[in-house]
């Protein structure tokens, strides 16, 4: 029984079946990659997990509870954090404030009317935030305007915003898209460390096979909205069906 159990999930957009009968299971403390050619339904699946979309059929159980019908903020409060394909951060705020907001969400819940407390008095949370910034090598940038940072820094910031909440499951949507090779390797190291030291389960959507095979313990291959295979990286490498799915894509 995995921490995330997806069973028979289907989603149609008009006449197009974006997902049909997707079943997969993410084991606790593992890194599970979801790969597949463009248009395979990876992002749709991810959106079904975080409450952005509601699947037409099937069930999504997280930690023994259904996530279906819950709003994104409720799903986050259950322990699922998401990193987006293009970094979603609070651009108008400073880096430190960007980290503080998830801290407040974790401590105070989805809404609290703390209008007469002072932000600068939250020593404990500030310390926690500074600590996580050190972990992602951004301590020197804490007073920077988040929007003015490079794309790589924005990604690391978004990652830190998720990590500071100590999620049970971290969902990553192409965390290395558009990165230089050196940055990609840094990100791989960071994610490995997160998985091993913090024991955070990860589900990752990725195109870059180098990233997938460096990180994943299990891989699900999606093609045209259905899972083709779910197996270990070594077995996936030699799988004929997978090769066909990818070659088929390149012929188009």
């Amino acid at each position, binding site marked *: 029984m995995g921490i995330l159990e997806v069973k028979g999930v289907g989603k149609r957009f008009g006449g197009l079946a974006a997902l049909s009968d997707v079943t997969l299971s993410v084991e606790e403390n593992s890194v599970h990659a979801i790969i597949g050619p463009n248009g395979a339904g990876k992002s749709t699946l991810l959106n079904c997990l*975080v409450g952005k979309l509601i699947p037409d059929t099937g069930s999504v159980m997280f930690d023994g509870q259904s996530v279906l019908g819950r*709003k*994104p*903020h409720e799903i*986050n*409060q259950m322990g699922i*954090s*998401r990193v*987006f394909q293009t970094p*979603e*951060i*609070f*651009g*108008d*705020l400073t880096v430190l*404030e960007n980290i*503080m*907001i*998830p801290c*407040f*969400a*974790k401590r*105070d*819940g*989805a*809404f*609290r*009317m*703390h*209008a*007469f*407390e*002072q*932000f*600068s008095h*939250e020593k404990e949370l500030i310390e926690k935030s500074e600590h996580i910034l050190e972990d992602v090598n951004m301590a020197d940038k804490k007073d920077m*305007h988040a929007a003015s940072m490079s794309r790589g820094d924005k990604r690391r910031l978004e990652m830190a*915003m998720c990590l500071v*909440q100590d999620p049970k499951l971290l969902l990553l949507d192409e965390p290395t898209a558009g990165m230089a090779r050196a940055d990609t390797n840094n990100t791989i190291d960071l994610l490995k460390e997160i998985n091993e030291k913090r024991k955070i389960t990860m589900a990752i959507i990725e195109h870059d096979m180098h990233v997938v095979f460096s990180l994943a313990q299990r891989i699900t291959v999606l093609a045209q909205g259905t899972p083709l295979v779910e197996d270990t990286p070594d077995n996936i490498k030699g799988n004929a069906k997978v090769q066909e799915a990818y070659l088929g894509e390149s012929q188009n």
Partner: protein
Amino acid sequence: MLGLNAKDAGLFLLVTIMVILAPLILNPFPEGSELAQFNAGYPDLMQRFVIFGIFAIGFNILFGLTGYLSFGHAAFLGVGSYAAIWMMKLLTLNVIPAIIMAVIFAGLFALLVGFVSLRRSGIYFSILTLAFAQMSYALAYSVLTPLTGGETGLQIKSTDSPLLSNLANGEIGRANLFGLEMGSSFEWGVGNWLFTFNAGYYIAGIVMLMAFYMSIRIFRSPFGMMLRAVKSNQQRMNYTGLNSKPYTLAAFVISGMYAGLAGGLLVAMDTQVGPERMFWTASGEVVLMSILGGVGTLIGPVLGAGMIKYMENIISKINDNILHQWFAFLPDGMEDFVVFLIHPFIGKGWHLTLGLVFMAVVIFLPGGLVEGGQRIGRLFRRKKRDGAVGDAAKTPAE
């Protein structure tokens, strides 16, 4: 001090001193001199400065922090005014209950309007709030005449006999604070100068300082940070486990209560209210105030409110005769020509002047008057450093 950091405390202290000394500062020209018409230190106008300052401070909590542009905030000002005048007609001429009721009613109405309008964002939100405000105006103007006095509005009349105020038969009640009448003033003549210290102004000023203080606290609180997060990236906020809806609704209600407070104070000062107070131009005016002063800054809305009210009252007073006096030193033909040129911008044409100033500010100082102040400040600091390389560190707008 008061739980504020040094910078905010300094700002608050500065504003406090300005409010206290306003009757002196705003009356720089001696009575009877040609420039005396630029004096703004008379009670009626000073009261408007601080009251519309409150209105704009509250509006800025919504617009400046969350980015939701309400185009119907005058409705809350109006609801507050009507609530206040009924308190004074029925219960007591003391302004405190009137102001409290104004805040409560405006808050409740804002809760209703906000609950519906905040289902949409961007332009649709603005249109919804505008629709609500215009409906309120139409209701006050005609449908609810028994409650609002229709077109003529409500005044305190000799037939009103509030429960707790002992008025002689036929006496027209006057607004007071435990016996201190709003209209009472102390006049101080020094040489040719005449300074008026008005009770109503100082009471409104104290309320404005409290409102300003609360706004600083909100800006510096975790709640204020959440509101800025709403403006910055609502999607990220929701995926971070925060429900942005109650935050925006709370901001909407708070700013509605500020508007109600301003409405209540307006009634406390002049004991009358009409439906035009809710008209959409009144809602537009507070938007202009915020943008003119500096959206999302602490002091900006107050400056913007002061600027607009000053122009409305001072520039509109200037007429052709005054212009002819000013330019009397020019040859006759030239004098007439200059007066002809300036004529559209004065008197009833003050809106034209305001429009030009507004355009200039939006184009050249997108951060409003506050940005202008910051640029001047930076200029001085650079000179002081005597050529030392400016770090040009962008300080967040105050």
